[in-house]
């Protein structure tokens, strides 16, 4: 029996997908692939790319952290924030990266002691992640013809 995947954030249900063959997620202990008949699992997620594989096709999502539960071939992802690769707002991610880099630079130059370095680095990581996932998708869809 294939997997049912629910990708949920506090703000909305991002995707509910049935008949999924495999799911690749950024788990707390490293990249994690979930196939049907997986044991019941509860794990935290790191910021990263999540891929849903279904009927030979792959779809990518950004997940900025959260939780994943597997039970009886039903996977629930409670993400802090998440969007499908084609939903990513590249201009906004660029802007976020620029802002985060600026904050880190100010911190390094000791100009601004109020900058929270850990938060700025996390923001930078999220922005780079979004850009990477969006970029990969663009290459995948425009680079070579789809088979």
């Amino acid at each position, binding site marked *: 029996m294939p997997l049912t995947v629910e990708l*949920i*954030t506090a703000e*909305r*249900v991002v995707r509910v997908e049935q008949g999924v063959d495999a799911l690749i997620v950024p788990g707390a202990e490293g990249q994690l692939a979930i196939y049907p008949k997986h044991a019941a699992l509860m*794990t*935290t997620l790191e910021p990263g790319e999540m891929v849903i594989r279904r009927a030979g096709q792959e779809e990518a999502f950004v997940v900025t952290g959260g939780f994943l539960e597997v039970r009886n071939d039903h996977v629930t992802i409670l993400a802090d924030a998440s969007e499908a690769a084609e939903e990513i707002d590249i201009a906004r991610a660029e802007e976020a990266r620029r802002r985060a880099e600026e904050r880190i630079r100010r911190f390094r130059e000791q100009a601004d002691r109020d900058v929270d370095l850990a938060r700025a680095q996390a923001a930078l990581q999220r922005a780079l992640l979004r850009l990477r996932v969006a970029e990969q998708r663009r290459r995948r869809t425009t680079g070579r013809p789809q088979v």
Partner: protein
Amino acid sequence: MATIRQLRRRIQSVKNTAKITNALQLVAASKMRRAQDRALQARPYSEKLRAVIGGLAAATVDPEKPAHPLLTVREGNNVGLLHITPDRGLCGGLNSNLNRSAGTFVATSRNPVDVIAVGKKGRDFFVRSRVNVVAEFTDLGDYPGAAQVAPIARLVIDDYLAGVFDRVYISYPEFVSTATQRPVIRQLLPIEPPTSEDESQGESTFAQDYIFEPSPEEVLAQLLPRYVEMQIYEAVLQNAASFQSAQMVAMKNATDNANEITRELTLTYNKARQEQITKELLDIVGGAAALEG
């Protein structure tokens, strides 16, 4: 008895008021739908989170020795109240009901209460009543997002962990229906683990059934702050939906009342006009008769 001119002016003024209240009613109605949608969309996440925490807490938490500081009941008497209200008025009794409920809570509390205000109406109320407002968050907008709630949650959790507060309560309007919003005050911290009724028979085996990565304690430690954040987020969403609904209903009543007054005034106006015409006719007829005679 008002003169005809005064009546005419009065009618025009009431009609103008009706136009404004009608416009506000329509705006609130459309915003209300979206605000309610957003409150509904948050539900799958919160239900799932509640079920997971309920099961996890029941399995891993020993009431004698709680597994996490956010679950630990402390003896101290520093009480915080997170008071969530709309920023604006023109929404019937919503704000005064919320402020009365929170005001009673503060007044009857055995310990002094510090307030964290979300929304201008609640902030102004507590500042006026000389209650200590330690922080304020305003202008969250008509459709607040989870990102706007994160700083509120961080402040509350940090203050709780630092011992600034030993207990934190949350006050917000529960959205029952378009016509009904009920002020609620609940305990936010320490977390009282939700009891999941539907999974009550599976609770004892919950922890054994799962593989946890990295560990049950670690997963719980990451889930609990999320849970606090989600509760605040839900309260903020319900506040937004409540405000738009209350405003729509209040403005609908105002429009109806204005139309009713217009109807009555128009009647009086027509009567007065009729009387004056009759009087003028009598004058003319009388004048003509005098000339003839």
